């Protein structure tokens, strides 16, 4: 993930740790939209996501003195944001979640070809968004971080505080669950 050079960001973090709020505000400008996009996939709506994003940055500002710099700033920030989002999501009414059964649906049509029309692309996008939301929370984060946001395995594992092996295993399970949800969608005629 490229959000300004690492050296540049390290300098901003050092200044923020020394109490320079202007430097922290620059970090906010660099990361707020991306963090909001991640958080939005855990909570009910944009407004809730904005509140969670604000809360995550306030916590980061209050706690930046404890940031050791062993990881990149944004992985530390994403961890705070995702934990905050999970707390918020736990207070919201439970949504219907995908079954943890990974068995293939044998009669599902083949949807592996790229959709040719804009409508088909938009349908795939819509079903992916809703299927991600229906994933159990522990499987949602790996897919969002790795496959949607494009973090490396190392970065995403760090955000989730997992070993790379444990992260890979959870990511694979999450992808299979999501794939199965798509199978179900296309078997039902894509409605």
């Amino acid at each position, binding site marked *: 993930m490229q959000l300004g050079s690492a050296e540049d960001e390290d300098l901003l973090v050092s200044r923020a740790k020394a109490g320079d709020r202007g430097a922290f505000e620059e970090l906010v400008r660099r990361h707020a939209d991306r963090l909001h996009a991640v958080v939005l996939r855990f909570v009910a709506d944009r407004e809730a996501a904005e509140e969670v994003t604000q809360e995550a940055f*306030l916590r980061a500002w209050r706690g930046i003195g404890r940031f050791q710099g062993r990881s990149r700033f944004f992985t530390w920030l994403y961890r705070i944001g995702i934990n905050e989002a999970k707390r918020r999501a736990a207070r919201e009414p439970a949504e219907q979640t995908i079954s943890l059964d990974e068995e293939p649906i044998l009669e599902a049509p083949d949807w592996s070809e790229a959709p040719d029309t804009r409508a088909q692309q938009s349908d795939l996008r819509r079903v992916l968004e809703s299927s991600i939301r229906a994933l159990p929370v522990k499987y949602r984060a790996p897919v969002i971080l790795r496959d949607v946001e494009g973090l490396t395995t190392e970065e995403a594992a760090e955000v989730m505080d997992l070993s790379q092996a444990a992260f890979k295993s959870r990511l694979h399970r999450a*992808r299979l669950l999501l*794939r199965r949800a798509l199978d179900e969608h296309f078997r039902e005629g894509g409605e």
Partner: protein
Amino acid sequence: MIRRFLGRRRYMREHRWTHAHLSEYLDGQLGPDQRERVEAHVGICPHCSRVLATLRRMLEGLHMLGAQPQTGVANGVIERLRDED
């Protein structure tokens, strides 16, 4: 009979191994021998072939979701920070 039983057992062993490593295959995280092992099995297993093709398609779709419009959330955060002081 024994040969068929052993062949079936070997097939199932490769099936389980391949199924467990499809994500790493797609992420380019397997070494050359392991890639070859996946490709050999996928070439003869319709189920793994279909799972691999649909996983690949799904990942392309997921990558497209990442292009988010700018939301201007930063301004709200900065206002809250300034209110805190």
